[in-house]
Structures are given as structure tokens and as C-alpha cells.
């Protein structure tokens, strides 16, 4: 039985901010199932970030529809979208994901606390995840005291903490060296299996693409190929 968590139908995005309109997405149809570990690849400017932002409710399509867990999110107001993101989506950005004044632990627990989860639940989950990303002993460090790779691991832990419907990661390894990249991918792949949480990430790094079980290639705002791999 397949469970569709994300469904994009006929999504177009045109930026009209500049004199010449930019067609970033030109008709994207996409279904993502629960538990997938999917990479969105494509050259720079092909529309990867735009697609992730629209799926994540950070931006709205110019045309088309996005359904998350069967729910059409285009009808939600800005503030409803904030609540929706908090309850349903985990985000990992390219860099500077973390709140500088909070420790690693506090960053991981942040979204759960916004959701008013009980303290014991939060504490257990934070410990479990920091151990899982190999930073069990760095919980009391602030982001500035962590390396770039460590910060991205904390960001992954934060995204996973509330067990969201899916996790979106826009070029999470773009600022990392190859060791840290491999390490982060290992962690993401393992947690994807262990917790059966859907991951969608964008990248143009070959080494990252090779880890994905599904690879969607975007070219000029259109899906060019959509391949599945057994890994």
C-alpha cells in the first residue's frame, strides 16, 4: 500500500520581480511516497530551490496545486502556513540553520517546544537524536563552537525531532568537505530507514546523488528524468 505524502500537480512558478519574467518552474507533476529518500538534481538555476520552497509551503506556486498528506496547502494563509510547517515539515538549509544563542540541545528541542511537547518526551528525543548524529557529547555547545559539518548534523536532528511528515533539505552538503558530506549522508540515510521519515533533498553533488534511492532531474524548470534505484 503506497502512501502519498507530497503531490504536486501542474506546478508553474514565474518570478515577476525583474523586468523580464523568469519561468523557474514550467509544469511540474510529482508524487512522493512515505519513506522515500529522494534527490532533486539539476544544474544551478534549474529550479530545485524553487520547487522545494513551494513543496515546503515557504512560497506559493503561480499555477498548480500542492497537496501534503492529501491536504491542499495553497488555501492556507501565511500564518496558517507557519503552523503547518511547524507541525508537518522538517527543514535543513544550506548553512546557518541554527539559532546562535541556543545550545545544540536547545536547537534540537526548539520545534518540539514550540509544539508544547512534554519535557520528558523532548529530553528523551533530544538525547536519542544527538547520539544518533554522533554529537552526544556536544549538546551544551553553541553553534559557533561546532564545525560546519557538526552544525548540519544538529540541523538534521532538529528537523527530525518532532517526527515530521517529511524533511526538505536544500543542498545540505553544499558547504561541507567530502568527509563531512559522506558522514551527513550516512546519518540521513540511516535515520530515513530507522524512523521511516521521508527525505527530499536537492544537490548537484555527484557523491550525494549516488546515495539517493530516487533521483529526479530538473532542467529548465521541468522534470527531465525520474529514476528509482535499489540501495
Amino acid at each position, binding site marked *: 500500500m503506497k502512501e502519498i505524502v507530497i503531490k504536486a500537480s501542474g506546478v508553474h512558478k514565474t518570478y515577476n520581480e525583474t523586468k523580464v519574467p523568469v519561468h523557474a518552474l514550467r509544469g511540474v507533476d510529482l508524487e512522493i511516497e512515505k519513506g522515500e529518500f529522494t534527490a532533486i538534481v539539476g544544474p544551478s538555476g534549474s529550479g530545485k530551490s524553487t520547487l522545494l520552497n513551494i513543496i515546503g509551503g515557504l512560497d506559493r506556486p503561480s499555477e498548480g496545486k500542492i497537496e501534503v498528506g492529501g491536504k491542499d496547502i495553497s488555501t492556507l494563509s501565511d*500564518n496558517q502556513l507557519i503552523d*503547518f*510547517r511547524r507541525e508537518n515539515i522538517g527543514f535543513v538549509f544550506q548553512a546557518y540553520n541554527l539559532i*546562535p*544563542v541556543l545550545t545544540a540541545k*536547545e536547537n534540537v528541542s526548539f520545534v518540539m517546544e514550540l509544539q508544547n511537547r512534554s519535557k520528558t518526551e523532548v529530553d528523551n528525543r533530544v538525547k536519542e537524536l544527538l547520539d544518533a548524529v554522533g554529537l552526544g557529547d556536544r549538546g551544551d555547545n553553541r553553534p559557533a563552537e561546532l564545525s560546519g559539518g557538526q552544525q548540519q548534523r544538529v540541523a538534521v536532528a532538529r528537523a527530525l525531532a518532532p517526527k515530521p511528515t517529511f524533511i526538505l533539505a536544500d543542498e545540505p552538503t553544499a558547504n561541507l568537505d567530502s568527509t563531512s558530506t559522506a558522514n551527513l549522508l550516512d546519518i540521513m540515510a540511516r535515520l530515513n530507514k530507522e524512523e521511516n521519515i521521508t527525505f527530499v533533498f536537492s544537490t548537484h553533488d555527484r557523491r550525494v546523488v549516488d546515495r539517493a534511492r530516487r533521483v529526479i532531474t530538473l532542467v529548465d524548470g521541468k522534470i527531465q528524468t525520474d529514476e528509482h534505484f535499489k540501495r
Partner: protein
Amino acid sequence: MFSIFKMAFRNIWRNKRRTLITATSIMFAVFFAVAMQSLQKGAWDNMVSSVINYYFGYAQVHKKGYWEEQSINKAFAVNDEITNTKKSPIEEYIPRIESFALASSGPRTKGTLVIGVDPELENSLTDLKEKLIKGTYFEASDKAVVIAEGLADYLKVDLRDTLILVSQGYRGVNAVGKYAVKGMVKFPSGELNNQMLYLPLAAAQQFYGAEELVTTLVLKTDQPKAIKQTVANLRHELDTNKYEIMDWEEMIPDLVQARELDEFGSTIVLWILYLIIGFGIFGTLLMMVKERSYEFGVLTAIGMPRWKQSLIVWLEIIFIGIIGAIAGMILATPLVLYFKNNPIQLPQEMAEAYEKFGVEPIIPMAFDPKIFLLQAFVILGMVTLMALYPMIKISLLNPIKAMRE
């Protein structure tokens, strides 16, 4: 909720220098404002209490229309209706019979204010006895005068000399009398010093042909701050068709107006001061929001409601405001207390001008918690108002744009 306070508190120390500069500027503003207002209030309170204690008292009862006409024909008897109202906070009604008379001695004649007073009661209000420079104070049964020094000089009279007083008495009777000088008083105020002549009440009533009558009852109270209420109550109890009850503000409106004008001036100075400080705080806010817009983008993206983000910024700026305001108050307290207990002595020329009006030539500072609280409220209000800016910024923030820098 806890994490909001935690974040706000830690954010404050993110840029220690800026926080300290902002808090320090608030501290100096509050310090200056408190010092200025305490000094002003102290000066005026001193002025008012001098004028009140000198002559007027906090309130007076007259026959209706007396204050306007100042005529001896508006004298009245102190009956039960009035004495029955003498209860706390009214300690005493101090009787006076006042009118003008010509005083002469030998070839010299001068218009004087001849006041009949109860020697002991009058002294309890105005310390008349303390002002004696020659002779002795009169007693209730005496038929002798206590004369102001300037007037005595003019008439060239000394102790035990005789004065002849001529006036129009109650209801037009001829008032004539001969009185020995028993004591001489000196008033700092030139005006009083040149025209005051005191008689014991009974002698004055006889002189004016107004047995048992008075023109003025000065109200002595142990709660001067509640004088408005006391007067209002009295107006209720006494027949206001027969009597007029006036508080000191109604009797000396010029002084009240001068004070209001002065306070208005300093209010403007304070507004300007706060405006300058306000710009400083606003600059801090601008920088706080600008350098953290990426962070607000992340917070909005991962689902922190915008009002919670605004609350953090508001808490931060309010906290800086409170630190500054408290520091300013702490700094001002010893200064105000010192000058309350050791008033500033005015230099010679200014002192003379003050004394002319019967005001002690000092400026004490008033220690009034209201002045302190007012500053706290002004800062709090100002900071809250300014926190609207980051709130608006945050409410309009587009997370994608904010994170694209």
C-alpha cells in the same frame, strides 16, 4: 514560553557593547529627568509652603464675597454652624479681623493693614513671635500693637511710643484708637514689612466696632495634601450662600500659574531629551532587526509564530530599558536625598529677591516616588511604542528573501 525569555535574555548579551551603550544612555536620561523634576518640585513646594505658612494658610473661610471686596462690612460671627465643622483633618480655625487703617505718629501718616489676631493661634500658624526683633509679643488682653519694622521706621516710632489709628469700621462707624507699640517684627518681604500692624483680636474688634466678628478664619489642617477634599467637604457642610471657602490655589492663582508655566517649560525639555534618547534606542532596534533578519527567516521557516518572534524583540528592548531606567533611578536617589536634606543655598542677589516675597532662599530637592515612577512609565511606553517597528518588520518578513543574503 520559557525559551522565549531565555532567547531574549541571551540575545541582549550578544552585542554587549551596544546593550551597554543603549542602557547607559537611558540611565543618564532618567537620572537627568529625575534630578530636574525633583529640583523643580522641591523649589516650588518650598515656595508654596513659604507663602502658605507666611500668611495665607492652606484654606480660608470668609463671608461670601469678602475676597472680592476685602471689606470690613463682610465680617461675620463664628457661630456653632462653623465650629461644628471643626473636626479632623481641620485642627483649628484661626480667626482674624483685617482691614485698612491710617496710622499716624506726630506729623507722619501711612496706610497700613491692621490685623486683629489671636496671639497664640496666629503664632502657631505663622510663627509671628519668632519674627520679633524688639520688645515683647502681645497677649490676648493687651491693647497694644506689634508693628512691622519698615512701617515703624517710616512713622519714626519705637517701643512704648503711641500710634493713632483711624479707619472706617464695621457698617461705617468711625474707628479711632490709640495704641502703644509693644513689639516690633521684621518680615523678609518688603511689602509686608512696610504695612503690617497687628492687634490682639479683642482690641481690633473693638477698634473696628465689630465685637465678636471676624473677617477671616484660616483653616489649620494636619493633612495639607488632602486640602482639596477638605475644602470640598466643608462646602458641603457650610451654607455656601453665606460663606466662601477658598483653598490656597484659589487665593493665589498667580503662583499656581507661574508654577504651571515653569513645569510646562521643563516638560518640553524632557520631551526633547526623551526624543534624543528615543532615536538612540531606535537605532539599536534597527540594527538588531537588520543583522538578525536571516535568523528571523529561519525561525519563520521552521514554524515559530511571528508574534513569538516579536515578543522576543520586545522583551529584549524592554529589558534594556528597564536596566537603564533602574540604573538611572539608583544613580539619582542619593543625589536627590542629599539635596533634600541639604538644600542648595541661593547666592546673595537671588536670595534677596526670594526673601522679598517671604520665601526661604533655598532650593531643596523633593523626594517623590511619583517622579521616579513617571520616568519608568515614560521609558516603558516609549520602548513599547518603538518595538512596533520590529514587530511590523517581522510580520512582513518573507523567509525566503530573508535567508537569501
